[in-house]
Structures are given as structure tokens and as C-alpha cells.
């Protein structure tokens, strides 16, 4: 196929700005799908979870045929990108597979943090940007203001911006034409040594890993012997093709094409996003730049609710990770929670997704601990330890220094909320960097934060203090030394490892107090008094008491009451299964996430 007649592009947008709706309309307009096939609202998001959340979390690609006014049929490969901060790297790899990006901005919302973050990624990747102002048909659309924001950002002309309403079908054709006219066709030599960029892979239980890729150079054919450059693994190509509503088999793919590859790879972990596929013989020597091993940033303990479900949970995680190469986990044990796994996630959203998938797809009842980051501890003997579980933190006397990951954050917010945002950032140990204004009403604030300060409720706080208007994007920068301490919780004198957290020393006292108070609300009364203490090392810094229950009995003297009573006791026994027994104390599962419920 002539490269001139191919366009590879993606759509970038902030969450809810209409990316998926626009994608669907492009598919309809090009007859790639029929309206009746759209049983669900958005074709590209095929996991239930994604549809419910209205966000795209897995990458996919789809090909459409566009018959242009010039009478030529063009092949459009639309590569989808995930829209959340946790997946920056995946976004960058999708972008690298394209020559152009449609930038969708909601005319009622304006430019947001992810608009900018993704835009910069696209510009870095050298993509042609096609700005689309979406939802222009709504009463609340601020067409002039938002157009101005886009102009400031892109340095484009007002007439370059396409006014559209994906929902109402306005401007769809203009978008298709702009892609044809403005996005350059792919370059690449079909006869050069093979280089394919993997931008996604999914697991199929019959075929193994299905690799989604863009052929950058050369030609790949069925039966070819290929190699994945990051791990040097060799495979034979079983099947190739392009992606329509389903897979469409082809005998070969060549430079400029976007398609799929099946080569009997058993595990998606062996087909990493960003990796390069080449021929085993006569391949290229250097891989496509930008490949990174995905690195978990957020860690949490995941435990089965009942001890006997441990093996089942392990199977579920094994199966889940087949399809999600970013999920890492290893067995760990907790005095309080028994046997479970320490899981590493790309970020908080990724963690939530895994939790929900374990629940919905695998029917696992799990208890999760409070998420934490990975700390880099240098001991007094000069040894460096990576600590991803607070209970594994060495004794204070053995610690020379602790470093924690820092991120740079970009927050875009209407200017009236700047003060409140700064207050929040201050509470979260933020270091102020710069503020600029996208227009007189919208500030673009840059901060640096310890990642640990934003992993639980920062985003929710940000949203609530800005009435939902603030948006956030962040990126890891480096590890930095911090004055951190391990805060332990003791129940009746015994430390409960699952409650341990690492906090900044200045916050430890207040946290200890609040955590004890919260646990006092959550732990039910027992037949004995329960003392809840917060401690740093050997020093108790806070205490609360759950008073002893005085009485737990009702008894009638009547034969007829026996069955009823038995059923009641059985029910109570079931109820206890939702509790974790820590020593002799019954702790409800939500207590292990009590830290998350503490309000500033």
C-alpha cells in the first residue's frame, strides 16, 4: 500500500472531554461500524470497568477506510491512548506509533492538566497536532476563551481549530479531512531491516500474547523468525494482520502499517510496551528509543479475606498479570492479616482497577492495606535497602537516611482557587515551582511533591476544594532524602504490622492521634477493653480506648426460641468472617484503610 494513503494518529484529551465519543463517531462516519453495532456507548473501551468510569485504561487500535473527496480511499489507523496520569509511559509509546494527534478540548471546561501533559508528550514525539474544540453545541461552551487557550498553547491560528460536537455529530467530517490534509503520511522504507514498535499487548488464552504494533521500517511476514530486542527472545510469526472490529489476517505488514502480531508468546510480560520487534537474522542493531521497564510506584498488601482463599488469590493474580504486565506481586505475610501479596502498581488508579477486577472478574474478597511508596533506605552500615512495606522498615537506630520518590505535578485550576490549592500543597509538603496563566482565569501551577503525599486522597481533595475544576498531572522525578519515621499502631500493647505507616516526622504526632481516634470508631467493643496506641519506636505518642462491652446476651427460656437463636448465632459467625482477628481483637477490614479516612 502506498504510504501516501496511510494516516496513523491518536486522540489525546483530558478525561471526559469526549475522546471516546469522537472516536466512535469517526468509526461510524467511515462505516467501520454500523450504528446498531454500538450496543455499548463507546466501542474502544471494552472492559466494563472502563465504560463505567468513562476512562480508557487499555490501549487499542482500529483501522478505518476513509473515502476522501479526492476520490482516493485512505487507510486511517487510530491508536487509542489511556487517559490517566498513571499511564504516561504507555501514552508516550502510543504516540510514538503515530504521525499526528487530534487534541480534543472540551469547550465547556477548557484546557486541563492532562490536555497539556499529553499535548507535550505528542509535541515531544514530533506529532502534527489537530486541535478540536468539542461540545461547541452546549449552552455553556466558552468557544472564544477556550479557543484562545488552545492558540496560546499551540501557537496555531484560530481557523486551525475545528469546532465539533462529537455527541451531536458536528464537525466529524472536518476532523477526518484535517487528518488527511494535515497529518503527514508515515515515512519508512519497506525494504529496510525490520523495526516494529510495540504499543500494547493483550493476552488471549488460546493464542498467547497478541502484540499491537506499528511497523516503523521494513516488512514482516508470516513465518518470519523474529526477536524481541529487550529480552532477545526468538519466536516465529504465527499470524499477522490489521485491526478492524476484529482481527483481519494479512500475510505481511510493512513500514507505516499498524497491526497485530501473534507469535506463540505465552506471557504478556515478554511483549513489553515500547519494545522493538526485529528479524532474528538481518535485524537492526539498535532498538527504537524510549523503551522503559514499567516501574511500580505504589505498593499495597493484598490479602484474602479468609485464610483458606490464599491459593485462589494467587491464581487470580497470576491470571490478571497475564493481561497486565504492569502488575507486580510477591507473597508476603503479616502478623495481622496472615498470608497475602505485596503488589506494586503504576499508580493509585491502577491499584483501584486491580482491586475492582479481582472483585468482579475473579470474585475474590480481599483486604488491602494502605498504599505506600517505595523508600530507599541507607543503613548506618552503608547498605541500601528498598522498602516497599512499612513494616519492613529497619529500626531507627540502623537508618542513616531515608529517601522517598518525588514527583513534579502540574495543576490547572481557575484562578480563584489558587489560594486553596496552595494551602493544600503546603499541607502535603509541596515545593512551589512556578505559576503561569493559560488565560486570565486559568492558572497553571507547578509543584514538586513527595509521591507519598499524593497517593491517597490528594486528587479527591484537589477536586473538592476547587469544586471539581482543578486537574492534575504528575511525573516521577527522583528520590530525595526526607525526615521520615515509622508510625506503629499497637492494639492492647501488640504492634499490628498492617497498620504501620511511614510519615514525615513533623506530621507523625498528629497522624498518630487521628489514626487512633479513627480506629476507636471502627473497632467494635469487645468483652475486654481495647487500647489503641500510636508509637514511634518505643515512644507512645497517642492513645485511645475502646471501652469493654458490658453485655452480649439475650436468652429466652422457650423451646421455640432455639432454632431462631441458632440461626442468629450462625449469622453472627458469618459476620465475623468480615473481621480480621488480630490476636484476640476483631478488626473490621475497613480499619486497615482507616488512614485513608482521616481528614486533614
Amino acid at each position, binding site marked *: 500500500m502506498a504510504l501516501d494513503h496511510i494516516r496513523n494518529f491518536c486522540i489525546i484529551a483530558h478525561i471526559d472531554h469526549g475522546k471516546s465519543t469522537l472516536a466512535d463517531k469517526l468509526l461510524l462516519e467511515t462505516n467501520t461500524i454500523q450504528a446498531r453495532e454500538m450496543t455499548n456507548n463507546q466501542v474502544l473501551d471494552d472492559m466494563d470497568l472502563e465504560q463505567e468510569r468513562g476512562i480508557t485504561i487499555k490501549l487499542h487500535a482500529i483501522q478505518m477506510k476513509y473515502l476522501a473527496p479526492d476520490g482516493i480511499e485512505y487507510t486511517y489507523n487510530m491508536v487509542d491512548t489511556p487517559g490517566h496520569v498513571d499511564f504516561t509511559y504507555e501514552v508516550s509509546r502510543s504516540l510514538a506509533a503515530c504521525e499526528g494527534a487530534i487534541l480534543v478540548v472540551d469547550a465547556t471546561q477548557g484546557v486541563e492538566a492532562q490536555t497539556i501533559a499529553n499535548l507535550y508528550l505528542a509535541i515531544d514525539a514530533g506529532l502534527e497536532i489537530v486541535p478540536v474544540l468539542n461540545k461547541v453545541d452546549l449552552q455553556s461552551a466558552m468557544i472564544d476563551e477556550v479557543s484562545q487557550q488552545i492558540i496560546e498553547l499551540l501557537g496555531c491560528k484560530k481557523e486551525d481549530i475545528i469546532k465539533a460536537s462529537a455527541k451531536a455529530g458536528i464537525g466529524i467530517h472536518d476532523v477526518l479531512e484535517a487528518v488527511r490534509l494535515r497529518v503527514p503520511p508515515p515515512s519508512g522504507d519497506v525494504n529496510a531491516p525490520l523495526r516494529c514498535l510495540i504499543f500494547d499487548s493483550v493476552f488471549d488464552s488460546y493464542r498467547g500474547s497478541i502484540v499491537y504494533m506499528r511497523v516503523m521500517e521494513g516488512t514482516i511476514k508470516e513465518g518470519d523468525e523474529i526477536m524481541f530486542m529487550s529480552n532477545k527472545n526468538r519466536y516465529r510469526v504465527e499470524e499477522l494482520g490489521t485491526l478492524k472490529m476484529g482481527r483481519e489476517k494479512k500475510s505481511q505488514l510493512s513500514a507505516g502499517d499498524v497491526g497485530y502480531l501473534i507469535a506463540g508468546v505465552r506471557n504478556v510480560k515478554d511483549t513489553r510496551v515500547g519494545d522493538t520487534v526485529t528479524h532474528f537474522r538481518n535485524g537492526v542493531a539498535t532498538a527504537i528509543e524510549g523503551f522503559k521497564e514499567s516501574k511500580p510506584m505504589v505498593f499495597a498488601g493484598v490479602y484474602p479475606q*479468609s*485464610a*483458606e482463599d*490464599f*491459593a485462589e488469590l*494467587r491464581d487470580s493474580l497470576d491470571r490478571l498479570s497475564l493481561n497486565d504486565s504492569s502488575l507486580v506481586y510477591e*507473597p508476603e*505475610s503479616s502478623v495481622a492479616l*496472615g*498470608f497475602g501479596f505485596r503488589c506494586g502498581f503504576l499508580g493509585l488508579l491502577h491499584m483501584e482497577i486491580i482491586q475492582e477486577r479481582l472483585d468482579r472478574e475473579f470474585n475474590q474478597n480481599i483486604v488491602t492495606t494502605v498504599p505506600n511508596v517505595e523508600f530507599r533506605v541507607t543503613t548506618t552500615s552503608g547498605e541500601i535497602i528498598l522498602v516497599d512495606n512499612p513494616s519492613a522498615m529497619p529500626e531507627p537506630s540502623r537508618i542513616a537516611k531515608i529517601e522517598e520518590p518525588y514527583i513534579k505535578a502540574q495543576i490547572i485550576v481557575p484562578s480563584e482557587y489558587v489560594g486553596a490549592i496552595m494551602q493544600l500543597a503546603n499541607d502535603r509538603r509541596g515545593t512551589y515551582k512556578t505559576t503561569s496563566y493559560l488565560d486570565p482565569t486559568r492558572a497553571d501551577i507547578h509543584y514538586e511533591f513527595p509521591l507519598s503525599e499524593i497517593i491517597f486522597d490528594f486528587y479527591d481533595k484537589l477536586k473538592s476544594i476547587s469544586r471539581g475544576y482543578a486537574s492534575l498531572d504528575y511525573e516521577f522525578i527522583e528520590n530525595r532524602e526526607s525526615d521520615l519515621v515509622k508510625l506503629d499502631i499497637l492494639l492492647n500493647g501488640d504492634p499490628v504490622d498492617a497498620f504501620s505507616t511511614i510519615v514525615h516526622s513533623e506530621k507523625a504526632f498528629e497522624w498518630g492521634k487521628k489514626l487512633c481516634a479513627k480506629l476507636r470508631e471502627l473497632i467494635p467493643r469487645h*468483652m*475486654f477493653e481495647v487500647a489503641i496506641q500510636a508509637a514511634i519506636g518505643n515512644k507512645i505518642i497517642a492513645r485511645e480506648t475502646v471501652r469493654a*462491652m*458490658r*453485655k*452480649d*446476651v*439475650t*436468652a*429466652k*427460656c*422457650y*423451646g*421455640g426460641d*432455639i*432454632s431462631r*437463636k*441458632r440461626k442468629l*448465632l*450462625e449469622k*453472627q*459467625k458469618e459476620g*465475623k468472617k468480615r473481621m480480621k*482477628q488480630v490476636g*484476640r481483637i476483631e478488626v473490621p477490614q475497613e480499619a486497615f484503610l482507616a488512614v485513608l479516612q482521616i481528614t486533614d
Partner: protein
Amino acid sequence: MGSYRQIDPLSSTHHTKQSEDRHTLSAYLHIPFCEKKCIYCDFYSIENLSLRSDFVSLLCEEIRMKFEREPKFAARKLQTVFFGGGTPSLLEPEELKRIMDALTFYTPLDREYEFTLECNPGTVTRKKLEGYRALGVNRLSFGVQSFDQRELDWLGRIHSAQEARDAVRLAREVGFDNVSIDLIFALPGQTEDTLQQTLNEAIALDTDHISAYNLIVEQGTPLFRLVQLNQVIPLDADHAAELFDLTQSRLADAGFSQYEISNYAKHPEKRAKHNLVYWDGAKDYISFGPSAHEFLGGVRSWNVRSLEQYKKMIDSGKLPRLESERLSDEERRTEALYLQLRSTGIDLKRHKEEFDEELLMNPEVQALMRDGFLQLVEEHLLALTQLGYRFCDGIVVRLLDRERYASEMAQRQTALAS
């Protein structure tokens, strides 16, 4: 009064306990009439007393039907008989005789039997009590509930405190040497003082046995509606616990020993033998009358809870049974734990034989013993302590999950293997 069939003492041979269980039986008879329903009561009874003589015939018919259909129970001897209600003391002695004649035709009274009749102090006369006694009634249980007139009025009792005192004295005069009274505590608004007063009066009556129940707000009662409408505010659990505490210690001081959550006896032989059959968890009891529950050979059955339906079924030749359940082993264990623990304790040897479980090996049991909730009595009974009685439900629930430790150990092994 004629006498009914009694077994010949000479013909009775020495039985081992187990064979005795298979040769004896307890019987419960439900008399579903009250002059006036009390606001807290959820036992089945109606206020239309005119149906009484009809009812006696129906009850006799039910007895006849049941024994004819299940003759294997007919050969047994009655160890305990209990007339409950409702208000059994609304029965005239002639009526009681008709019922007992029907019953003892199939199952004669054992040599040493306990025959209890629940009495409302507002319904008894000397003549009635003498009549009952002549029929073999040897234990009276008076529903006194309180000696505080305001509390009695609030509960909807038909008798005064004075009538309660008089009734008990009358019973003594007539010659009853096993008299019990029922009390209810934790009434809304009840204070330590009013309960103390009631306990003092109860003790002064010098009965052989006292049952003191914590008020339960049962669904479907007028009291339940009052609570729902916020017109009555139930006593909070901590206060109720204090009143329970007061009851336990006051009665203990007066020489009553607690042998069940709500029951106290001056001497072990004055414990309610019929109730101990319920709390054994394995003994058979047969029952008659609307809403009555029985437990025979591991099967629990209960009758319809309506006199009208009861009559309809018996008239059409059917047992007035509503439902029955056969207990699984696990259910039997649950009931055994609960029933034995709430009363005199679990016989460890018997428990091991029946359920293959060494309770003393359970770390939960060990901890509860250490903390003073459970104790070992006479080296073979695992029983609640005075403190433990207050937490019976919670303790039983802790013991129900016998798999817990086993599964935790198993999991540990799985995890280590991986």
C-alpha cells in the same frame, strides 16, 4: 379427683443414664389464653377465653393423634411435664385432669417427675391450687415480673404486687414445696433502686427458684411498636448490664445459685428440670398446643400459631404441625454449645464423643478461661463464669468456628510451600 396411671415403683429397674434417655420423655403443653396480653409478650395467646373448653378437647385429640401415629414414644415415662402459655392457670383443675388423663394414657409419669404449671398470680384461688396439687402438679412458676406497681401497670400485668405475694404464700399453704417466680429486669426507665426493691421482695418471699429475664423487645409486640414510634426508649446495653450484675450479685447473696443465664435455684434439686431438658441439646421433648415446639430424635417440629388453624387441622384429622427440621451435625453442635453453655456447662467427654472436638485444645477456649469468662467445673464441665453469663452469645460465636484454627494452620503450610 381420680388418679391417673402411675407406674408401679416396684417394676422400675435400675437404668443407666443413656438407656434412661430412651425410656423417658418430657412434655410441654401450651395453653394459649390470657385475660389480657402483656405489652412485651410474643408467646402465642388469645384473650377470647370462651374457646377454652373446646380447646381442651382439641388438645386431648392432638395428644391421642400424635401417640397413635408415633407409638414408639408412647412407651416412655414422663420425667417432666410443663404447662406454659399463655396462662395455664386459667385452666380449671377438671380441665387439667382431662388433659393429663389423655397424656398419661400413653406416657405415664415417671417415679420422680417434675410437673410444672405456670400461674398468673391474678388467676389463682386456694381451691384451684389444691385441685392442681391433687392432680400431681408439684412445681408452680408464678409470673410476677416486678413488685413495683408502676412497672406492673406499664407491663400490662393483671395482678398487683400484693396479689403476687398472696399467691406465693397461698401456694406454700396448700403444700407446694417447689415454687418459682419470674421477674423481668431492664425495663425502660428502671433504676437500680426499683430493681433492688423487686429483688428484695422476691428474696423475702423465700421461693425455691427465681427466673430473672432481661426484657427483650420482640418484633410484633405492642412494645416493639412503641419503641419504633419512639414512645418508649429501651434501656441502653450498659445500663442493662449493670442491672444484670445487680440481679446476679443480690440473688447470690441471698443464697440462690445461678445455673443458667436467667435462672437461679436455692438448691440444685430445685433447678427447673424441664428447662434443663431443653438446655441439654439432645434430650427428647414432645409438645402439644398451638405454636408449641418439640424435639424428638433429632427432629424439631412446631405447631401452627393460630387456634383457628389448629382446630381446623385437628378436625380434619391432621397433626397441627407447621414445620419441622432435622438438624445437621453442625447444627446439633451449634445448639449443644449454645444450650449447654448458657446453662450448666458442656460435658467435655460427651462433647468429644458426639462432635469429635477437644474444646480445651481450642486457643479461644484457653483465652476465655484465662480472662475469666469460662471455667472448668468439677473437672469435666466447661461452664460460663458469673461474668461469662453476660457474654454468652459472643462467647458461643467465638467457639462456633471450629475450622478457623485448622484452616489458618493449613494456609500457613500452603504459603510456606509456595
